[in-house]
């Protein structure tokens, strides 16, 4: 009969995949949790394996009994039905034994959890802010910060180019941290809820607008560790990677020096008058990284969700209204206040760009100094 042939097949399939999952700890298939690169991540891994094996054993017993009964207590084999239907003793046993098993799981889980939540005595603090759809990292002790944006080219996503090794898990500027140092992260968000997560560090924490979450890590080996935004945050939720580069302390110090120099160098002359071409060139670039996600590269927007800027009344109307919405956003919509995110020159550039690109031929432009005044 069909049934008889298929049941063992099915159980083999299930059993086989269970085994596969277990063995994969050693294989590089990426079937199991990574052990990671911190003490905590290894503890979490061990805990995971512990519960997993407990479940496998319980499953083996329960399913074993069931399968035995399915094969031997069937009518076609002449089995006569017994009529017992109660036994207080076994009921008590199978209530108490699971409780004991659960307690045995809860003890190590509690220990690990308490360790994870102990943020005291960190050496460096980095503030992480989620934006739709990028991360910002602020090194609070060293006074610099930057945005980190997906660097996978559009063509790869649209399948017109081959996908690179770290497709969707690569960024223009990774977060850099030193190894052997307790690093504390303050996680928050500027708009909707995001979550910052890196499996190799066993970290995942929501970034909640208006509140701050804390986590910490102490990475042992230098390397690049990748993760993604792990809370639905809108259209480009899948395109918001997290890349952490752990460097030796010396390399880290060097890097910090470079960043601080960079930050100094980029402070601009507020009174410089920009030419229209300069503004347009810079504007195109600012638009591509900050605005195109919603308003699309060609300014056509997404009907119903994100308005087109091409031919938009605001982007071709009075310049004051235009800069007002870009600077202050619009409450209750996805349009954020960019005054806090972009510099005067970037704002001037992107506004000018929008007023003159894609056939928006207003011909006018706005200077950084005017933006500054409008802030």
């Amino acid at each position: 009969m069909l049934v008889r042939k298929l049941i063992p097949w099915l159980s083999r399939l299930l059993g086989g995949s269970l085994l596969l999952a277990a063995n994969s700890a050693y294989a590089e298939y990426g079937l199991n949790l990574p052990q990671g690169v911190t003490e905590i991540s290894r503890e979490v891994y061990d805990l995971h394996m512990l519960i997993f094996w407990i479940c496998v054993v319980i499953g083996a017993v329960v399913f074993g009994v069931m399968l035995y009964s399915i094969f031997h207590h069937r009518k076609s084999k002449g089995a006569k039905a017994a009529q017992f239907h109660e036994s207080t003793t076994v009921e008590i046993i199978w209530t108490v034994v699971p409780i004991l098993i659960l307690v045995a799981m809860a003890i190590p889980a509690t220990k690990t959890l308490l360790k994870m939540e102990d943020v005291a005595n960190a050496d460096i603090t980095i503030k992480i802010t989620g934006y739709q759809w990028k991360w910002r990292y602020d090194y609070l002790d060293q006074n610099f910060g930057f945005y980190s944006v997906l660097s996978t080219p559009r063509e790869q996503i649209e399948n017109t180019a081959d996908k690179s090794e770290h497709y969707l898990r690569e960024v223009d500027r990774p977060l850099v941290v030193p190894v052997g140092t307790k690093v504390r992260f303050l996680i928050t968000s500027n708009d909707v809820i995001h979550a910052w997560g890196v499996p190799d560090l066993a970290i995942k924490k929501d970034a909640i607008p208006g509140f701050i979450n804390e986590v910490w890590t102490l990475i042992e080996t230098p390397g690049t560790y990748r993760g993604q935004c792990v809370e639905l945050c809108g259209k480009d939720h899948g395109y918001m990677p997290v890349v952490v580069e752990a460097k030796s302390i010396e390399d880290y110090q060097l890097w910090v020096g470079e960043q601080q120099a960079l930050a100094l160098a980029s402070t601009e002359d507020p009174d410089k008058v920009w030419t229209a071409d300069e503004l347009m060139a810079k504007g195109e670039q600012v638009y591509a990284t900050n605005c195109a996600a919603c308003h699309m590269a060609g300014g056509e927007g997404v009907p119903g969700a994100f308005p087109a800027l091409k031919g938009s009344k605001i982007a071709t109307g009075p310049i004051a209204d235009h800069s007002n919405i870009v600077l202050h956003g619009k409450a209750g919509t996805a349009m954020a206040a960019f005054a806090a995110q972009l510099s005067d020159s970037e704002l001037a550039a992107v506004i000018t760009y929008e007023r003159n690109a894609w056939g928006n031929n207003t011909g006018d432009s706005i200077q950084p100094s005017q933006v500054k005044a409008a802030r």
Partner: protein
Amino acid sequence: MSTATTHDAHHEHQPSGIMRWLTTTNHKDIGTLYLLFSLLMFFIGGAMAMIIRAELFQPGLQMVNPDFFNQMTTMHALVMIFGAVMPAFVGLANWLVPMMIGAPDMALPRMNNWSFWILPFAFLMLLATLFMPGGAPAGGWTLYPPLSLQTGMAFPFLIFAIHMMGMSSIMGAINVVVTIFNMRAPGMTFMKMPLFVWTWLITAYLLIATMPVLAGSVTMLLTDKFFNTSFFNAAGGGDPVMFQHIFWFFGHPEVYILILPAFGIVSQIIPTFARKPLFGYSSMVYATASIAFLSFIVWGHHMFTVGMPIKGELFYMYATMLIAVPTGVKVFNWVSTMWKGSMTFETPMLFAVAFVFLFTIGGFSGLMLAITPVDFQYQETYFVVAHFHYVLVTGAIFAIMAAVYYWIPKWTGNMYDEKLGKLHFWISCISVNVLFFPQHFLGLAGMPRRIPDYAVQFTEFNMISSIGGFVFGLSQLMFAYIVFKTIRGGAKATDQVWEGAHGLEWTLPSPPPYHSFTTAPEVK
């Protein structure tokens, strides 16, 4: 359907045609409406799942844009939960509860009609959002603000559709409670009620207690968006996480709403085909009640990563783990019922046995998710998706299918095609595992849920999963075919239908008369 032919002589005033269905107050008619509606919604929600699986067949964007993908995810879940599974259970309750307790009909027949007829309108409203500028809601079925507040035109329609679904569920639940309290035949004491009735009674309480809370939470979303309140806005003293607390206070009991009646169904079917009384009847009742009670105090396990104070994390972890105990009692009782039985494996039994296996696997992954420090790794990954599809698809959906195969001979008077039924079972059972088992690996390897596109190392398992999905989806066409074929005709069913079946519903003719028990039976 069958009831059309059992048109009693003294019912000559009954309207015919469409008006009959629009105005009916008969529990069987309404049960049929619920079940057919649910089947339709299962197909609509399933079609959305097929779009999801097709897009995820390989990395890169091929079929849909990310925003539409999120709309599909959101709508798939809302349609499946509120449109397919819940109405299916209410439909079964309508058909079976009066027959099982020896009542003429549901206690409040007119309200029964209303609770059904709100649903098509609610889903019309929800599905209409797909065609609005800006599209359907795309913030996930959990509707977390501030993201959900960015929804465009669809937003108020979403909220009111949920309000309507809530009203329908509350009315349905009140009806079940009142029927069970007030309409039992003489001698049908509480501890003699079939387990399906018991589990539904407890489910009804979960519904009455939690649906209003859902209504409250979405009302706050509405006022936050349109009337400038700041429940979920830190700038005004509120907190986006507050929504999650209120939502999951509803949401967690909700998942037991989706499984307790399934427990009841399986507890009816296994004894029948094992030809042996259910093992541990009273412990089954107590276990169900304990699960329901615990379900109110574990909601925080969906929020381990929001940064709750440590005391909260520990409390929710311990409380959640405890649910494994009463659920275990149920599983052990089913196994003991099978033990030393005299089993046969007709289609309902096959689904019921598969339920016990596969639900338990889903329960195990649930238990793993309950361990807070490890949940940080699993949370919002495909491991969670695998978990809940095991409990929902191979749990709730399999139980519903088992129920349909089990009772459809009673409802229609015709036997279904056993060969086709078995074939449907085997294809479904294999493909559903191909569909969802690999998602465990994807999740462990770190693939987040709710993404339209993924890193290349996840490709193989996504392909396998999608193929399983397509096969599973297609095999459900078979289910629809079998059901309609049975409605149209087939071998005549006896009153008892199954050799080992016990209970009042099997004492009625197949199909049963329009009013199940015009004179109450005496239960000894």
